[in-house]
């Protein structure tokens, strides 16, 4: 037995095996756990930079470093979501309807308009695979899925992982192709919940389910690690309490700030 999130974590982790450096943005517990799972089985060769983490975040040059680091070619994979995602892998993190007076407004594009161009393997992730999210055409392009020739673009969309299935994205065809469907889903259920057209085999295979070893790693070490940044998620998924509050803060938190200095 496994939970949907566990299936997704294992599915994403497989896409990260063999990479050197994976970065994970804010509010991304499933991609974060996937990166930590891939790291746990990489025997030390995968570096994970997890926004909000103290132990898995080495940046020391302020908010710009993640972006500069990506532009230097030092980040192999990143994750983006979308309030809307369309068939050309355009993503919308801004709003629905007219830009100036929208029907719905989301927080904003964050770093997507940039990282989508510069990180070779951007994995799109959504827990709501519905016609509302998977639209024919996004209302606002926070970041385009493809760019015309001549645009400097070492990076771009690699896959779309949802609660129903896994798509690969072809930059040449500018289209998604259905790779696997999660247990309980089939081509019809995916088609009827997707507002855009995509390529698919007649009988898409099922997404490989987590092995016992993967589940053990996830429910143990990885769960404890992700609890540092996403304690509520770890508690909900695996009933893991944050191991030790001190891990989130410098060892000397208990002292007064003055004592830290003197």
């Amino acid at each position, binding site marked *: 037995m496994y939970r949907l999130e566990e299936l997704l974590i294992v599915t994403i982790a497989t896409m990260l095996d063999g990479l050197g450096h994976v970065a994970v943005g804010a509010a991304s517990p499933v991609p974060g756990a996937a990166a930590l799972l891939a790291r746990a089985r990489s025997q030390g060769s995968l570096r994970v930079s997890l926004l909000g983490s103290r132990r898995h975040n080495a940046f020391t040059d302020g*908010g710009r470093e993640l972006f500069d680091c990506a532009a230097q070619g030092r980040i192999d994979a990143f994750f983006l979501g979308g309030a809307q995602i369309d068939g050309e892998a355009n993503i919308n993190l801004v709003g629905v309807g007219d830009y100036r007076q929208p029907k719905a407004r989301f927080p904003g594009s964050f*770093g997507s308009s940039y990282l989508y161009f510069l990180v070779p393997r951007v994995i799109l992730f959504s827990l709501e695979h519905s016609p509302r999210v998977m639209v024919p055409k996004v209302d606002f392009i926070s970041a385009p899925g493809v760019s015309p020739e001549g645009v400097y673009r070492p990076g771009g969309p690699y896959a779309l992982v949802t609660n129903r299935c896994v798509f690969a994205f072809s930059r040449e065809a500018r289209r998604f192709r259905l790779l696997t469907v999660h247990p309980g889903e089939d081509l019809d259920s995916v088609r009827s919940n997707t507002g855009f057209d995509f390529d698919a085999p007649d009988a898409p295979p099922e997404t490989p389910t987590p092995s016992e070893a993967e589940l053990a790693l996830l429910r143990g070490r990885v769960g404890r690690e992700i609890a540092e940044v996403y304690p509520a998620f770890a508690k909900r998924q695996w009933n893991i309490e944050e191991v030790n509050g001190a891990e989130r803060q410098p060892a000397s938190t208990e002292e007064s700030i003055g004592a830290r200095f*003197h």
Partner: protein
Amino acid sequence: MTEFLDSVDDLAGQIPDGSRVAVPPDYSGCAMAVVRALIRRGARALDLLGVPQVGFQGDMLIGAGCVAAVETAALTLGEYGPAPRFIQAIKSAQIRMRDSTCPAIHAGLQAAEKGIPFMPLRGILGSDVLVHRDDWKTIGNPFGDDDRLVVLPAIRPDVALFHAALADRAGNIWIGVRRELMLMAHASRQTLVSVEEISDDDLLSDDRYAAGTIPSLYISAIAQAPRGAWPVGLKGYYPPDAQHLKDYVALAATEDGFQNYVETFINASRSDLDVSA
């Protein structure tokens, strides 16, 4: 010379209505007590810059009618859910929104830091972020063929406003690894800082502290404000007050609820100590 002011209200008094004010995200160092002082004062027409995004500070200032325009890569309350006053203001077109993307804000501030009129940046082409920014341009790479890229005008805020753990008597500010605060200070005309504590020692005399210190050269004024980042918290010192933040989001769902919040937690106390202790 850096001025030492008596209160966060005095610090807020250094920010004229209409100022372009740069503020950091909730996870960096937010001068929440000064934000409350701005709301008490009834500040107006602020042009708020998130570096590169903004959280509760933005939602509160917008709800209180202090803000005319926002430039940010996101206005987000993170795990606490959608930002109610921001969304309401956007839907009713009460504020002018200049959507950006994180590295564009850093790059614009770096242009100001270097005293250059613009900074080129990769990415962004083909996005609607660019479409809606008539202050951004594209040019051909002077060192390439048929290679266009975005150029961003320098961002020089009138005021950088943030909260830090420690100042010294000379006006130096220790920020540790929160280097975006140093960029804000370099790029802005004035930098106003609330701090947990003011030390008698010289932060620059010890290399371990100097490496994470903004020299007083860039600091206009400082006021001490213990727990001045409450309720969003100051990493390494005190955590977010999660219950209070949840309560805020629930109250701020309506205009009346937000006014209620302002009356209870902002207007009722001149000193923030009463509330945050």
